[in-house]
């Protein structure tokens, strides 16, 4: 199924164009998406997941055409 995918902050994901439609397996959770995208474990724990502009847990099942945003803040303040 297709989802709209965006990432912000420190994340750099190889071979995935930011703000684009990507294919994921049906029934995929947010946690599984991060694993499929090869996001490092030490980053995963600090990532906030937004699905259709609402923050969701890692166990949330992603649905077709969902707008999924991953946010890993950069340091400094």
């Amino acid at each position, binding site marked *: 199924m297709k989802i709209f995918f965006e990432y*912000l*902050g*420190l994340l750099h994901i190889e071979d995935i164009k930011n703000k684009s439609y990507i294919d994921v397996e049906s029934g995929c959770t947010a946690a599984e998406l991060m694993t499929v995208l090869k996001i490092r474990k030490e980053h995963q*724990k*600090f*990532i*906030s997941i*937004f699905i259709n*502009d*609402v*923050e*969701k*847990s890692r166990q949330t099942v992603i649905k077709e055409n969902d707008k999924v*945003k991953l*946010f*890993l*803040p*950069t*340091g*400094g*303040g």
Partner: protein
Amino acid sequence: MKKITYEQLTLRNAPQLKGKLEKGVIGIAGCGGLGSNVAIALTRIGIGKLILVDFDVVEPTNLNRQQYFVNDIGKRKVDALEEKLKMINPFLQIEKHYEKLNGKNVKIIFKEAHVIIEAFDKVSVKAMLVKVFTGNLFKEKYLVTASGLAGYSSANTIKTKKLAKNIFVCGDNKTDFIAEGVMAPRVMITAGHQANKVVEIIDKIF
């Protein structure tokens, strides 16, 4: 000290904000580079109340970007900042918390706040505050966080973006302080974005 009125202080503000800013209660999570600059901007325009939270004291290395002076070194940041804010706007209400924020006390400390400014430097604490906003308790509040304000690359890369209906992020979302350092110009620009978003939110909710 000379006496002024609240009307004098706010006379040059946007007229459509009249009667709104003084109702606003803003939480400042971290009184360093971002937090001290946001607090001063909001104080100048007549915000009603600030809840200042920081567990640290002023150090010499803070002075390149934070709103403190040499004679503040060694003082608690919340105390040093309060002194300055009161000199700008004697009508401002201030609540100070000299402690570390965590997933539990954040909900108590910021209970009264309409908007919370995330102004930490560590990624782990920044992420914690964003996650708190998943809870029902904070669904009516707004969070303005920051990500990417390091170095001295173009100031025009610093933007305000919507992360969720009640969460905004200011910064370039790229630069990191460990590799590039943090300095007043880009920190102040990002803080300006955060303060401006607060004004937009206050205008909308009152």
